[in-house]
């Protein structure tokens, strides 16, 4: 049976489906979560495209779902599209090369800015006000770098979709139709982790955002919209990141030098006002308050949501973090989330589910 929303929703009644974000599933608890959501026995569409060529190594997941599931096979479908449409494959390869170079160059600037932030924070202030202003200034520069990067990534994607119009190419049209049909036959959707770039690429190519959710008016934000998922969605790891508004990459424990968290691109935008941080405790140096403060500041106005082993967060019906959830607060430490009192947007510039870049809902 599909789950119905609980009473704390915003009044969408029978369509009050929720997104549930989970910690890493190395020791899987998907079966328990499905049961607790009243989804035992429900037919589930699974997305494991982040596993790339191991997409079909999903025996454990199938067992967890009691066998009543269909893997959408997005990665494999993507390979078929590349085989059938080499021109599109070539264009997409070029797009990815451009994005890779953009990411590299953005990172060079970002590393310098973050280094400057660390040095300024470490400065022993002679005047506290001057010191505070200097920290705020450099944080603003970092945020500007992030925003510009996301905007430019979106421009490259828009240009690709406008120029090559994958949505009008036969293999893509066929794939989207088939995927849409399969999802339509299911009562829930599960999106596993893996390679977030690959996962996002496939989700966009098959235009999953409008398949998974509908844009509805946001009562908290006059004139705004939010995504209302059409069926319950469970996601973890890269899957959790991909369905949020913004994907932030982070890995403080890299081999050569501590990494700098970097914005990859906007996600599908099915959630509002959160940045998903899977395996945060493992991947982030949470004992370094400066690094954590910088990270949470860069996430604002969204809230940094850790998804550690055992974590399970069912979002509100409008895709927001519920009160009392463990999050990273402005000072970088773990705290319980309290929604802002004022009626104001807690989300960034994007609102509602993002369609495939450069095209209308398919």
């Amino acid at each position, binding site marked *: 049976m599909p789950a119905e929303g609980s009473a704390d929703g915003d009044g969408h009644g029978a369509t009050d489906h929720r997104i549930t974000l989970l910690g*890493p*599933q*190395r020791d899987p608890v998907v079966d328990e979560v499905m049961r607790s959501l009243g989804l035992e026995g429900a037919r589930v569409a699974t997305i494991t495209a*982040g596993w*790339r*060529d*191991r997409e079909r190594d999903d025996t454990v997941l199938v067992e967890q779902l009691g066998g009543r599931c269909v893997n959408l096979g997005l990665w494999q479908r993507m*390979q078929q599209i*590349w*085989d059938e449409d080499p021109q599109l494959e070539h264009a997409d*390869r070029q797009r990815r090369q451009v994005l890779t170079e953009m990411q590299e160059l953005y990172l060079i600037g970002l590393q310098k800015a973050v280094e400057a932030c660390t040095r300024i924070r470490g400065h022993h202030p002679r005047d506290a006000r001057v010191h505070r202003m200097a920290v705020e200034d450099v944080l603003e520069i970092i945020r500007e770098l992030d925003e510009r990067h996301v905007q430019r990534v979106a421009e490259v994607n828009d240009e690709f979709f406008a120029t090559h119009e994958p949505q009008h190419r036969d293999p893509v049209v066929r794939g989207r139709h088939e995927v849409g049909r399969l999802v339509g036959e299911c009562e829930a959707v599960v999106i596993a*982790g*893996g*390679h*977030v*770039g690959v996962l996002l690429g496939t989700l966009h190519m098959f235009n999953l955002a409008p398949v998974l959710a509908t844009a509805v008016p946001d009562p908290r934000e006059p004139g705004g919209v939010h995504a209302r998922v059409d069926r319950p969605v469970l996601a973890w*790891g*890269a899957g*959790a*990141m991909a369905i949020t508004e913004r994907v932030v*990459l*982070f*890995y403080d424990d*890299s*081999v*050569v*030098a501590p*990494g700098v968290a*970097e914005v*990859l691109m906007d996600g599908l935008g099915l959630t509002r006002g959160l940045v998903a941080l*899977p*395996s945060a405790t493992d991947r982030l140096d949470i004992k370094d308050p400066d690094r954590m403060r910088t990270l949470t500041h860069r996430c604002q106005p969204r809230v940094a949501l850790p998804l550690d082993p055992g974590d399970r967060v069912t979002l509100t019906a409008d895709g927001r973090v519920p009160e009392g959830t463990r999050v990273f607060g402005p000072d970088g430490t773990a705290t319980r989330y309290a929604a802002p009192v004022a009626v104001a947007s807690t989300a960034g510039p994007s609102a509602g589910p993002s369609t495939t870049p450069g095209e209308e809902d398919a």
Partner: protein
Amino acid sequence: MSQQTAYPLPPRHKGKLAINALRARRLDEQVIDRFLAEREVPIVEGPKCTFLYRGQADGVAVRHRIVNQPQHVPMKRLEVPEGTTPLWYVTIELPAASRVEYQIEVRQGEAVETFNDPLNPHVAHSPVGSSSVCQAAGYQTPEWVTPQPDARPGELVALTVQSKALRRATHPRVYLPARFRRSSRYPLLVVHDGDDYLDYAAMRTVLDNLIHDLDIAETIVVFTNPGDRLREYPNSAPHARHLTTELLPALEEQLPLIRRSDARCLMGASFGAVASLSTAARNPGVWDNLFLQSGSFVFTDIGSDHGGGPAFDPVVTFMNRYRERPRRVAARMFITCGVYEPLIVPNRSMVPVFESTGARVQYVESRDGHSWENWRDRLRDGLSWIFPGPQKLVYE
């Protein structure tokens, strides 16, 4: 930019050294037998490493190759009752995380014999034979150098390339990462002394593990081997021509490689590092990454007397000329060297020279010598810097 090596804290040891405790005892054959059976040799106690040899001899010494240290360290004979097999010992202080290769030298009259330490099972192999290994306190063999059960193995494929430049056929071996797909595009790493890297630096296992752990990108690695190493490696035009105009086009024709200089890397140790550097220098814009281990970058500031023998003549000529007019040969260079090898001085000296060309240089030192296990232990740092893996993109 040099990387500050994070060595473990200096090891400490409280109380008497084991050898001194033994000396204070009444000794006989059984006591010494038990003493040896209960301990790994050399005995590592904090920074003190006690080397031992048991047997009749007129003199015994430890021979190692730590630069700026006496490399012939005589052992003392422990006083034992007549009829008891003598025990020889010497204690050497080694900094934390050191790894030292050595042999035992035994003199009987005029006859001198050098061999691996019969009391120490740790042996390192190289093309010129094997040596015993002393692992000082704080040294740990990296876990990624031994096969990991969940790491999918890559494949090694033999290749033959007819070389006009070298006037011989070359037989590189090509490593294709697990899950290799022709529809993907891969960076290229060309390794000098390829078979030695495979045999003595466990490089196939290292690649399997590092790719599995997402530390390095899925990479096609070509293990090349020299014909006459001392002719082909020290700044040889035919060698550089072979790699760039024969091997590279053949590889690009047969394999799905990223056809960009920033997706190519030349790598080598010792003379192989010189071959990598000189090949990149002779072909600007082709090889944008270099991974140079213990490069034989010998040069002279005055005259040409370098003391390295005739094999080093072309190296010194090349390096002196390069130092006179440094130019950027690669965009990124990862350089490693052991602080116990004589080449530490030229390697340290070359770092600012390379940096002055605008290249991004990462320099790492280790408390180790001119050895394959030293080069093995630095592979993760170097390869993950040259071709970083997708760790930051993968969230399980």
